[in-house]
């Protein structure tokens, strides 16, 4: 499994930090990124659905989990957007705007992962 860290860094990653936490093992890092991309693609939709159902705790927790996962993987830009959504949900202000940014960032992140990781 190949990994182009330049593509990741161009999409707001700190791939060096992500690699470091994986003990420098690019193969493991690539696998984890791929799983993350597969798993999290529908996350913004899930947050919106939870908010529409009035279930703000679930929406906040989903944003919080994404923040944690993204930061662990070195996806710093995505982690920042997720943090803004979490804060917006908590305060009840500017949620739509924050979600829009998160949606864009998540799409870019997943796209970068799909490009950077090769079989």
């Amino acid at each position, binding site marked *: 499994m190949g990994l182009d860290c330049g593509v990741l860094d161009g999409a707001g990653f700190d791939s060096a930090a992500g690699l*470091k936490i994986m003990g420098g093992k690019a193969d493991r890092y690539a696998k984890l990124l791929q799983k993350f991309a597969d798993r999290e693609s529908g996350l913004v939709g899930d947050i919106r659905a939870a908010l529409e159902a009035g279930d703000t705790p679930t929406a906040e927790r989903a944003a*919080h989990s994404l923040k*944690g996962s993204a930061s662990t993987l070195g996806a710093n830009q995505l982690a920042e957007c997720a943090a803004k959504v979490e804060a917006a949900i908590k305060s009840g202000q500017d949620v739509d705007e924050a979600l829009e940014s998160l949606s864009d960032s998540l799409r870019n992140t997943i796209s970068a992962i799909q490009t950077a990781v090769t079989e």
Partner: protein
Amino acid sequence: MSNGKKFILIVDDTPTNITVVSGILKDQYRTKIATNGEKALSLAASEEKPDLILLDVMMPGMDGYEVCRRLKESPGTVDIPVIFLTAKTESGDEEEGFDVGAVDYIHKPFSAPIILARVRTQLALRDALNDAQVAQAEADRLLHVLLPRKVADEIRSFGALIPQRHENVAVLFCDVTNFTAHCDKHEPEDVISRLDALFVMFERVTAKHGLEKIKTIGDGFLAVAGLLREVEDPLGAAVRCGLEMVSTLVDAQLGWEVRVGIHAGPVVAGVVGQERYQFDIWGDTVNMAARMMGVVTPGGVAVTKEIWERVKSDFDGEPVGVLEIKGKGKISVFSLGPSKA
């Protein structure tokens, strides 16, 4: 199989974090995963308890703070160190983590060296604490072997025992009359094992009558009634104890005879020595009990006339005579027999 590796429970609902944290720990520790609070509590309380728990805060259902609170409320899990591992980074979050009993708090994004170092530190602390508890328990056990429980507890709590005068204490001395001759004719192992058996028997008899053993001196045995433990009739208890000691020895057919001296009155009690604690009693009452033991024939229990007057309604006895007692002058001595009851 544990393979001697410490066991760490990782509690997190996020697959990415579980994979990363497990990957960091797996070479040095055994790990198990719980993806929610309820499962974490169940695993923590199972027979194989984790040595440490890494706990996420925000999880569906029960959050990490509540999990930690419940772990600390349960006697079975209160000692398991908990480290929060979380993306909740406000200082208030960290404070709440420590409030509910966590020992450390690691922020996400985390680094492998930080997780490993914090885990290692907490496990080493836990081991040191366990070692200290074992050593303390052993020290307590030894202290209780050396000293009466009440004395040991006071020394443990306050670092010293305040010497006290006790007014109505019955003192019992006994010794083996032909012990020295026996020593000269028998192997040391034989002598000591017989003496040990005898003193164990004496300990049992003294405890049965509510007396407390103070010490052994060579082939002698010193016990008291009414000193640290309240006894309704200290003198009566001491006499019954002395009579049983004499008759038990005959029954045991150890080939020895003992003699007993009893006196009652005030004594001073305290602890002397620093390298080896010795709880002891002093005073004229102690001396008189020793003197009575010295004048009675083997198999007898001797008291002064003063003591005889106090116990004669309950026990048989006969005058031995008026004897010259060292340091006391001429004293009328009585030898006691079985209880009249």
